[in-house]
């Protein structure tokens, strides 16, 4: 059973900034982008498995969608959390697109042209990272969002609870379920 946490309006300087943005203040909007885009980009790099170009494209897409739906931001969660949710959806939309765009296997390409002595170790590390990423992306939606928001966006369990409309206890339960599922998945692929 899930319970909705009470709506908590965003407060403090960031809250004022968001209020100014909603009032149509361009300078505030630019400032808000400055304060949030690095976090969004970093989380998208992890979601995309290190594809910086794609992450940059999706970061831009995230803000485009954010401006379009700014009126729907009710301040229940932090603005950064709300933005991450949009970024996460943008990423999912991207991977769910028809498989007509085939990314070049960048990991293999790097390995092929890298002549460093620790090539094998780095290659194995990359493989492990990629296995973990794929295992995360294979999780059920509720677990997947909880894990990526918590670890790849740095969002607290309380904040995840707010944006998901569930309790923090429920978020922690989801995270534990996710750890178990990931453990099984990684064992199977090792």
């Amino acid at each position, binding site marked *: 059973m899930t319970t909705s946490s009470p709506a908590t309006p965003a407060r403090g300087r960031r809250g004022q900034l968001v209020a100014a*943005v909603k009032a*149509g*203040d*361009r*300078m505030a*909007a*630019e400032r808000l*982008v*400055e304060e949030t*885009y*690095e*976090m969004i*980009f*970093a989380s998208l*790099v*992890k979601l995309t498995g*290190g594809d*910086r*170009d794609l*992450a*940059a*494209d*999706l*970061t*831009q897409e995230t*803000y*485009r969608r954010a*401006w379009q739906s*700014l009126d729907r931001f009710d301040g229940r969660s932090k603005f950064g959390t709300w933005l991450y949710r949009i970024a996460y959806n943008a990423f999912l*939309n*991207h991977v769910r*697109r*028809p*498989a*007509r*765009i*085939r*990314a*070049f296997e*960048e990991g*293999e*390409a*790097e390995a*092929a*042209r890298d002549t460093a002595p620790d090539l094998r170790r780095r290659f194995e590390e990359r493989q*492990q990272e990629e296995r*973990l990423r794929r295992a*995360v992306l294979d999780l059920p939606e509720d677990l997947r969002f909880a*894990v990526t928001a*918590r*670890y*790849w966006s740095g969002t607290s369990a309380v904040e995840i609870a707010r944006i998901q409309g569930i309790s923090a206890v429920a978020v922690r339960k989801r995270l*534990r379920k996710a*750890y*178990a599922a*990931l*453990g*099984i998945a*990684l*064992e199977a692929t090792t």
Partner: protein
Amino acid sequence: MTNERDIKRRLSSGADAEPPAGLLEAIQQEIPEETFGPRITSSPELTGSLWAPRALAAAVVVLAAGLVAVGVARNGALPESVQPVPEVASAEAPAEVMAAAPANSRLRALGYLDAEGDSVDEARSAPSRRNELQGELRRELPVEDAASFRDAPDASLDADAASVRERLMERSVRTEASPRPVAPPAASPLEEAATPQKKEQKSGEESDAEREQESELQAKAAPQAAGSRASAELVPVEADDPAEIEEAESAVSEAVIASMETPAAARQVSAEELANESAPRRDRRRSRRAPAAPAVPPDSLSESRLGAGRVAGVETLEIVAVAEDFQLRARLEPGFRLEIENRDREWSAVPFLRDRLVRYDLDEGLLGDLRPDGVLHLRTVTLGGAAVAFVVRIPQE
């Protein structure tokens, strides 16, 4: 089995990636104007005016004047560098002081002018022309000459004046003999009245004129370069006409092959020309894209090749058919990129770039156009009516 702690550690590992340069600017430029108003910038390029440098210059002048005023108020005197030249009290003043003094002061000290600056003795003083000559002497002669002029006896003043006149004439002749800058033709009153407005419109008109000129150049260049690829000129094909789509597909392969024969000079295109063609969506990436890493040889798929060719910036370009799908593969030279724009479908509206080796699968009808300026335009027309344009262009930077 992997334990929970290990999973958490692995999920948390890895440093955050630094965003590419230009990403912030690109995002900020996309903040919608209809909601937040136009972006404020002081760049003359963007505003099309020179108000910012002028305002800055005016501010510097005001600041300098303010500093002088503060100096006067504090010290009761102007700084040494802006002290007025002292009056000369008598003819016994040192030569350098005399030379530095104002002309009227010097003439007063020498007894030729009274306190009001009028001549005191018509018999002794030269005619009014002498005063003029003396003034000119003050301006024209070096300090030593001015001092010798002071020491000259009264009777020699006329001779001195004549000498000065001669020297001034010489200077005048020398000046006339030297080349002068050619003045612009005099403007009529009507033109003069229109001048301020013209200046304001100049930047805009120039850019319009440049665009027109470039369009004309491109139009002129097209027939020259199109000779070898006349058969590659394509016309839009209705999406629901399979026969025409098939025809267009073969035309595309012709276009790509013909590109090998396109003269290199015809493919030269400036970044500026390309910038004029670019759509806003493409522009936002131009500033943040860096040349990609070296490419890896494409893998060897078994496919029936429809066409292959070479255009500026593209090392290899292949349009291949795999089963019923088309696939475009391009390996780009450093500094080039392949941009793809879908005009109708949201899911592929984001231009696509994968280092220098690009693959894009096409399962629909293909249209294309290789322009003589070296810009490759390929377009797919889907059965649903969506169009995808492929553009190879030179980055602005």
